[in-house]
């Protein structure tokens, strides 16, 4: 998902243009020589159309190699993409270090396709820096196999200008699904635009729908991932809501094949009033697609009622190739520490980073959730406070509840296949007026169950 990757680049503000701080890594584990020449490859290089991010990335790599003369880094544009990731794993073409979504480690760990990095993490002192809440995603039998570097929760992104035009208060975004429905209806009736843009393709339809279900208090799979829970009442209710918005209110527009990028582009063009997305999409909307910052609002992910049921939380982890030698694993972790941790744990780097970000006309201070310990992150926010350049007002709806909102992880087993099945469910509701949500979900549950048991 390119959007996520770019989100990552913006959010983590990967840049080291400032003074080079000597990297003091802990002593590495016994048998490997920390100074032997070693070569690693890393993916996630920003595409050239994202010039500022690309420059930051290249500068960071160069600075890292200067600080660690024995390590050589090859970069590539390879990114995680759910459509081709399996093929890449099978093909053995993954770089030594790659950032992938939270949905992937479970299967990779089960298939023994990730190296155990627990000891190195401990000896380098990285383990204490991580937020314990996100460790389950990368652990199996109390061993750790990947490094969480970015966490997101869904938000309701809304167009403040269209809100005003529809007679809604842009400073009070809807917080419940009933309010969202009413707002979408108002936008469509008053402005003729799409009230609510729902993603439906590339597994992102299922991803967004899962977040809706979480807000309604439902789940997609049982806790152990052996059974689907698509026939539960909250799931049916969610789908019924989509059906009503589509066929009764006609507030979902006419484009029913949106992926995350498609809906973002149309939102930026002012064709869509609301969408579910990550807060970090703000940067794409404003910088890449030229939307006015003052027109973007970010509210909390809608809930069933006033009590907070929860929001889907996902994120990215850096995985290290199973083919890596112990020297390469060490070098890879050094790189991860340098690139993903230092900007938050070292004031000089954090400030230098933020300055570079500002110089690139990028944004500082888009709110989010942290993979780091809570204290450390608050400390970091203190450091960067003077440089924040996003209008906090646009985010209040989101920041008011983000700390209280229960975080719910993505489906534990074959999440991407579950998302794929849900893509179809959402598309069907959008294109077929006669469909019965309960019957549709019970069919989907059957086919998902057969996949979960395979």
């Amino acid at each position, binding site marked *: 998902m390119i959007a996520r990757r770019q989100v990552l680049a913006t959010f983590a503000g990967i840049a080291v243009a400032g003074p080079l701080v000597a990297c003091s890594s802990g002593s590495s584990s016994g048998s490997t020589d920390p100074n032997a020449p070693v070569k690693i490859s890393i993916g996630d290089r920003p595409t050239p159309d994202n010039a500022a991010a690309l420059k930051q990335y290249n500068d960071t790599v160069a600075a890292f190699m200067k600080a660690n003369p024995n390590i050589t880094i090859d970069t590539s544009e390879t990114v995680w993409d759910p459509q081709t990731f399996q093929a890449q794993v099978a093909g053995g073409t993954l770089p030594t270090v790659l950032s992938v979504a939270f949905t992937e480690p479970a299967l990779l760990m089960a298939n023994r396709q990730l190296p155990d990095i627990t000891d190195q993490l401990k000896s380098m002192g990285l383990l204490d820096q991580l937020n314990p809440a996100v460790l389950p995603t990368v652990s199996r039998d109390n061993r750790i196999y990947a490094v969480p570097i970015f966490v997101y929760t869904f938000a309701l992104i809304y167009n403040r200008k269209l809100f005003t035009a529809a007679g809604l208060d842009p400073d009070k975004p809807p917080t419940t699904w009933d309010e969202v429905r009413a707002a979408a209806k108002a936008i469509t009736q008053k402005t003729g635009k799409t009230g609510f843009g729902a993603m439906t393709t590339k597994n992102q339809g299922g991803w967004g729908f899962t977040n809706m279900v979480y807000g309604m208090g439902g789940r997609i799979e049982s806790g152990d991932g052996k059974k689907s829970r698509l026939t539960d009442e909250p799931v049916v209710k969610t789908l019924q809501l989509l059906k009503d918005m589509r066929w009764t209110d006609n507030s979902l527009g006419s484009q029913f094949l949106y992926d995350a990028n498609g809906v973002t*582009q149309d939102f930026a063009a002012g064709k869509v009033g609301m969408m579910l997305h990550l807060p970090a999409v703000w940067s794409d909307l404003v910088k890449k697609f030229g939307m006015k910052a003052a027109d973007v609002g970010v509210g909390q992910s809608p809930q069933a009622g006033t009590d907070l049921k929860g929001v889907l939380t996902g994120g990215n982890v850096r995985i290290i190739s199973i083919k890596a030698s112990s020297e390469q694993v060490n070098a890879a972790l050094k790189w991860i520490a340098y690139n993903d941790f230092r900007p938050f744990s070292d004031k000089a780097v954090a400030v230098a980073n933020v300055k570079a970000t500002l110089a690139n006309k990028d944004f500082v201070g888009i709110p989010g959730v942290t993979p780091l310990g809570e204290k450390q992150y608050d400390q970091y926010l203190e450091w960067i406070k003077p440089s924040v350049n996003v209008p906090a007002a646009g985010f209040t709806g989101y920041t008011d509840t983000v700390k209280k909102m229960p975080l719910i992880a993505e489906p534990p087993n074959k999440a991407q296949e579950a998302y794929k099945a849900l893509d179809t469910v959402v598309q069907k509701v959008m294109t077929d007026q006669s469909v019965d949500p309960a019957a549709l979900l019970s069919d989907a549950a059957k086919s998902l169950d057969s996949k979960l048991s395979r």
Partner: protein
Amino acid sequence: MTTNIARPRAASPAARRGGKKREEQNERGLLSDSDRGRPTVRVVLICMQIIVLGGLVLGGIGPIVWAAKSAVSTSNDILSAPLSWWPSGIHFGNLAEAWTRVRIGKALGNTVAVAVGSTLTSLFVSITAAYVLSILQPRWGKILSGMVLATLFLPGVITLVPLYQTVLKLPLLNISLLNSFWALWLPAGANAFNVLITKRFFDGIPKSFIEAARIDGAGPIRVLWSVMLPLSRPIIGVMALLSLIGAFKDYLWPLLVIPNPDKQPISVALPRLSQSAELSINLAAVFLTIAIPVVLFLIFQRQFLRGVAMTGGVKG
């Protein structure tokens, strides 16, 4: 030449090479001169000409012109007024941006590399194979040509997964071809259609040529080099053109075997780009992509159309 189905004619190299001389054997078509003289026929014919020409211009040139126009428009114009001419001016910068910033230039270079390599492999394999099957005719030739022929009816789909497995790790050699152009070049050689077309062409070359060379004491290699190849120029040209266009068209296979964006040909790079770049840059990239084959086609129009007629067209 599909015409041989109805009535096989002894084919002379000249006829083979020149394709069909329509005016020689086809002085008249469906309509006789008296038909053409009738006023109703004339009116209908003129009306039909206008309609067909209009349709063809709209369908053939329309999209290309629209892409050209949009390639130098702003995103906003494309979205809000897709059918008007540059409400907010012409932006040639889009093309430069697409060429450098999103590296359409690089992707096009990769495409050319893929096309050239595939063409060479394909020509080498088809010519040697056709030489064996058509001229040398060993006892086992029939078996070989049968086995090649058998693969003609299995679309590539069938072997997609095992072929991918093969490219991941070549049996016996244990090399992975992933992310290298060889993964596109080598399978291009296993093209039964090209082998058969070349064989057919060789079959049409009179045996007296070979006989004469043999009397001069030429061995098999000499015969291939100095007799067959010079005579095969037309088929080589057609196959090269079609391979080139094929390289521009192929999508699924390069998508699978070239995961590294730095090496991807244009067909794979373009959809990836449409994910991340804004609309105007996107359409500039699309325009640059279609411009090359279109220009090639306009230059080599005759050869193209003859090639299509001769080989029955090639599905991309």
